[in-house]
């Protein structure tokens, strides 16, 4: 218990230290990429829960991210003025859930309030996760990987092919996301610091939730499912339900990340749904140690930041491909796993280290 929260406190300290460091170095612009990193990290810790603890791979999580981002972006930019006659629109307006918004050219738009849009986006992602997750999680191995990959590609193709969603250009001009106390999630340089803390605060909140979940009855049940699904079922753990719930939870994390990053960036494009993004998330979870939330979070912080700052240049995707191959060849249980010191000792003493579950 104490250790769990001391890690959280240490991480919060790191977040503060990074902000102070950028302030002292006179380079606050780094915070922009670090904020974006935070939202990707939220997705990654959710995915880590699914891959590492429930033992189910998903190569389609960029799809859930995109569902969140696209739905929120669409609802907060699509002009409803033409549909004023519809009862639903009138009802929403009466409830104060619609906003008047002026565009670049001075025209007025009637759009959905970001809060409602966010709720709709996450709800849709959760519903889709439930519907897709049911049959998908019955599959194993190749089939599971292919099915989730296929799901991701369908979302990508739909985003790319739908005019209403901006086709290849995506949706831009997405407004900021207003919060209480005068805070707003937006990429405006004047709110850069507060946004940095908001984003990482959200990640820490997510981490606390997941850490508690892992230590609970559910977490222990999941590790039993991961270890031996049939045995877990035999001792009375409803394996299918636990797997599905974890899948839905990680999809919810991804869609929340998608919503907020879209409002932060002011737009979203189909590349957010691409296969490469999904593969990249899996690569980060793998290098973070598969069943190691903190490892995944740290790796996400480092790698996403480097990638967003453009350190990998045109080799961006290749870097993540190479990481995946190397990790899976030499450390299939992930790099930063819990027993890494013991493993090193065993390696040093010449013991066999190539044992693994088939």
């Amino acid at each position: 218990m104490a250790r769990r929260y001391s890690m959280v406190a240490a991480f919060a300290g790191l977040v503060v230290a990074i902000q102070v460091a950028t302030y002292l170095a006179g380079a606050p612009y780094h915070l922009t990429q670090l904020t974006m990193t935070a939202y990707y990290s939220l997705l990654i810790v959710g995915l880590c829960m699914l891959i590492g603890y429930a033992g189910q791979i998903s190569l389609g999580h960029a799809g859930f991210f995109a569902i969140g981002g696209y739905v929120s972006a669409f609802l907060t930019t699509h002009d409803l003025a033409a549909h004023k006659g519809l009862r639903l629109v009138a009802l929403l307006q009466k409830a104060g859930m619609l906003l008047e918004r002026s565009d670049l050219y001075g025209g007025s738009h009637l759009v959905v309030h970001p809060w409602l849009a966010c709720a709709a986006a996450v709800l849709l992602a959760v519903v889709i996760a439930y519907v897709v997750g049911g049959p998908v999680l019955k599959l194993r191995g190749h089939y599971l990987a292919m099915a989730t990959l296929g799901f991701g590609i369908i979302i990508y193709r739909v985003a790319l092919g739908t005019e209403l969603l901006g086709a290849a250009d995506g949706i831009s001009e997405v407004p900021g996301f207003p919060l209480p106390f005068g805070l707003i999630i937006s990429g405006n340089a004047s709110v850069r610091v507060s946004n940095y803390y908001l984003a990482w605060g959200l990640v820490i909140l997510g981490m606390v939730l997941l850490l508690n979940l892992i230590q609970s009855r559910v977490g222990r049940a999941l590790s039993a499912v991961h270890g031996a699904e049939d045995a877990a079922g035999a001792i009375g753990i409803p394996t299918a339900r636990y797997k599905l719930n974890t899948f839905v939870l990680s999809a919810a994390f991804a869609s929340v990340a998608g919503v907020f990053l879209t409002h932060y960036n002011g737009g979203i494009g189909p590349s957010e749904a691409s296969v490469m993004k999904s593969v990249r998330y899996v690569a980060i979870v793998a290098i973070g140690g598969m069943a190691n939330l903190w490892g995944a979070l740290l790796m996400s912080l480092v790698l996403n930041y480097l990638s967003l700052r453009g350190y990998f240049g045109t080799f961006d995707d290749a870097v993540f491909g190479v990481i995946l191959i190397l990790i899976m060849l030499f450390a299939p249980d992930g790099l930063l796993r819990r027993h890494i010191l013991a493993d090193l000792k065993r390696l040093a003493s010449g013991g066999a280290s190539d044992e693994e579950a088939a």
Partner: protein
Amino acid sequence: MAGVTYGTIYAIVAIGFNIIYNATGIINFAQGEFVMLGGMTAVTLSRFVPLPVAILGAVVLTTIVGAVIEIVFIRWLHRPSVLRMVIITIGISILIREIALHVWGESVRSLPYFTGTSVTSIRLGGVYISPQVLWAVGVGAVAVALLSAFFNLTMLGRQMRACSANRDAARLCGINAGNMVTLSFMISAAIGAIGGCVVCPITYVHYDSGTPLAIKGFTVAILGGLGNSTAAVGAGMILGILESFSIWVLPAAYKEAISIAILLLILFVRPSGIFGSAEAARLKEF
């Protein structure tokens, strides 16, 4: 007729999947990349040497790539888990694609038509067909026939089948199982490259064209029952034709989404495939 052409290439990719699956029990997600590599190499070589030589060179080079992949990444792994192999082959496919991007850039390329030009057509029983479609279908048919002869009639083919049936028993009979796996990668790289060359004049080739092919090829492999190459041909035609008809109903932009939706449906409803038996599928390790 576009459906048939695409169907041929899907079938060829599916057969590539099957060969490696039969030999090793793993799905090589980089299968589509062999097709892309074959097409790309042939396009580049055709600038310097005559077309047949260029195609031959492309097939040889891709075969070598297949062998290198197996030797470097797969051979020394001791009983790898399925998940591990999936991720490694995905990593390999990303790597090949990125190398292709840096070598050939983002432009779309194509080979000249083998006989005639893009407007030549042959009248066949009342319909006009581009000779290239006949080339694609013909080469596909010859490849399937040769492969089935190879696996059933030659000593080497029988050894490969022995390895896929029971690796340990095959080893006890003195078959070098490791080499058989390398060989399976080489064969599937080779037929992928051949397929890439024949359809390249019609479908064009692009550094990124491998992944969609891999997924559709997998759809076809599942549709026909994983490991069953003859059924894969029929399934390939079905998918290719379904896909070309889907344009009538939905915008072309959704074409790929449709074929993947078909894949998901098959996986959910009947993972053993249309032609496969459900009982046999249950015995396989996914």
